[in-house]
């Protein structure tokens, strides 16, 4: 890196041939605005309370605005691009990481940049938008017209949404590839599905986590079950499970949007019902008139002196099941509306205490709908299998439930199945109660 931060000196990384090829391969340069990117940019502007947000793709001469939302001054709004040497994105490409500018007039990287005046850019925050192979294609960024210090929450929200923007590009790319080479689409679907699921559950202090995902029998189509576990504000953690009704790329896109919107919404600190309401707002536009919807369950847990305090809301999703340390099994959650269809949803937060040794089981209906002839696995068998688990560890409950469903079914599964199990540690030797 040179010490001279003249804005006319464009970093070499911008001209990397591999990167430029990846930018062109997106096929997005000089294309019009699209809902999926505008939605993410709008969400960023809203959540960060920033007047402008952009999704950009940078080639060798300009930063093209795939999405530009907010109060963009009219004289630059038409062009939908800036010269690369004036772009803030060049610094994102150079660093291959996020860039935060608190006061553009004082920051040596930007003080001489004419955009600081043309667009009234006083503060800037951007994360890279990457290709599936990891090349930096451009940036996902927000602009403020006043100097500001970007908070940890701002940064986390922006990071999360930038991943979603990268995911959108990977999906578009995947559609192309799938159309070109139909025979490879099964493998592609699996790869995409894996990228949508959580590959490794995080370590949550005081909790044991286990999960299982099994795609529907055919396996060639993108399916819509998902789950996620992530840290919220402070010492709270969120466990999410959901089911998008539908198959294919549309459903996969909805799944990605759901995961990232819930992660972003969690940073607002509201209860699960508020997170799900925010997701409904984000989905309302995308799903309109297509009959696409999703069901989801969000459980927020926080460690207390007596175990974990949980707050749980259902949006069209089957209730959670709690296996108490004594072995009894009870339902948790109150029925609420499914998401993505109706502008108004009714959701309820239910609070419960999970004591040491208690097990919380979240599942999708692929489990209860598993079929043998005209019989279904159903809720009674589900409760029975949870109660009958040979050891109350999360891993055992997941493995034995999965085996019970597989043993019951007499054919390939019609639907995906997802299971997410949390167990409150007993503080002693693991899994011994």
């Amino acid at each position, binding site marked *: 890196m040179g010490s001279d931060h003249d804005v006319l000196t464009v970093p070499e990384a911008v001209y990397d041939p591999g990167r430029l090829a990846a930018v062109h391969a997106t096929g997005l340069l000089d294309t019009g605005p699209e809902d999926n990117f505008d939605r993410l940019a709008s969400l960023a502007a809203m959540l960060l309370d920033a007047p402008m947000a952009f999704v950009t793709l940078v080639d060798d001469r300009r930063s093209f605005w795939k999405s530009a939302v907010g109060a963009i001054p009219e004289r630059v709004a038409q062009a939908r691009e800036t010269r690369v040497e004036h772009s803030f994105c060049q610094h994102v490409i150079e660093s291959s990481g996020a860039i935060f500018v608190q006061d553009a007039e004082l920051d040596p990287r930007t003080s001489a940049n004419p955009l600081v005046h043309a667009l009234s850019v006083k503060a800037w925050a951007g994360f890279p938008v990457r290709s599936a192979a990891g090349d930096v294609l451009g940036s996902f960024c927000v602009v403020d017209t006043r100097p500001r210090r970007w908070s940890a929450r701002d940064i986390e929200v922006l990071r999360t949404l930038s991943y979603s923007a990268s995911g959108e590009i990977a999906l578009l790319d995947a559609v192309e590839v799938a159309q070109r080479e139909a025979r490879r689409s099964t493998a592609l679907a699996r790869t995409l599905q894996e990228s949508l699921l959580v590959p490794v559950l995080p370590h949550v202090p005081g909790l044991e986590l286990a999960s299982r995902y099994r795609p529907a029998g055919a396996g060639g189509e993108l399916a819509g079950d998902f789950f996620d576990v992530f840290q919220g504000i402070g010492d709270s953690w969120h466990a999410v499970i959901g089911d998008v009704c539908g198959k294919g790329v549309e459903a996969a896109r909805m799944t990605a949007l759901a995961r990232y919107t819930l992660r972003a919404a969690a940073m607002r600190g509201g209860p699960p019902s508020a997170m799900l309401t925010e997701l409904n707002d984000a989905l309302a536009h995308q799903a309109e008139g297509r009959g696409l919807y999703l*069901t989801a369950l969000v459980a927020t847990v926080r460690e207390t002196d007596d175990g974990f305090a949980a707050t749980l809301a259902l949006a069209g999703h089957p209730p959670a099941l709690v296996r108490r340390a004594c072995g009894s099994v009870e339902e948790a959650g109150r029925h609420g509306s499914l998401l993505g*269809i109706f502008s108004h949803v009714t959701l309820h937060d239910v609070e419960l205490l999970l004591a040491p040794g208690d097990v919380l089981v979240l599942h999708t*209906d692929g489990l209860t709908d598993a079929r043998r002839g005209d019989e279904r696995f159903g809720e009674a068998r589900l409760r029975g299998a949870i109660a009958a688990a040979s050891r109350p560890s999360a891993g055992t409950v997941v493995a034995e439930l999965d085996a019970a469903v597989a043993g019951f079914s007499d054919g390939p599964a019609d639907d995906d199945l997802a299971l997410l199990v949390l167990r409150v540690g007993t503080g002693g030797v693991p899994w011994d109660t």
Partner: protein
Amino acid sequence: MNIPDLTIVRSEQDGIHIVVLSGELDLRGVDELQAALALPGEAARVCLDLTELAFIDSTGLATVIRGQQELAAAGGAMAVACGSTGSVRRTLETTGLTRLLTVTEDRATALQALG
């Protein structure tokens, strides 16, 4: 394997179109149901009787919702009868649809709601 199919029976009473489903409604039956719901015309009043239906999955549910929305958008209406117990009633309750759609226990009440 003995997988029950979907059976659709259509009739009309006092200008209300009655669509009765029995068996199981899943991906295999959604095209047929979609056609049956579209048949009466856009602004029709449709009574969808699910009291004899043993099972509905998410794709079936999506077809019912879409049918209802298309009818409502064109000035028509749909009421759904689904019994007071059973798998279909439970699914409509779990998804919150008993409050978002016009859902009744029996066909007579559904017809009244449309009348």
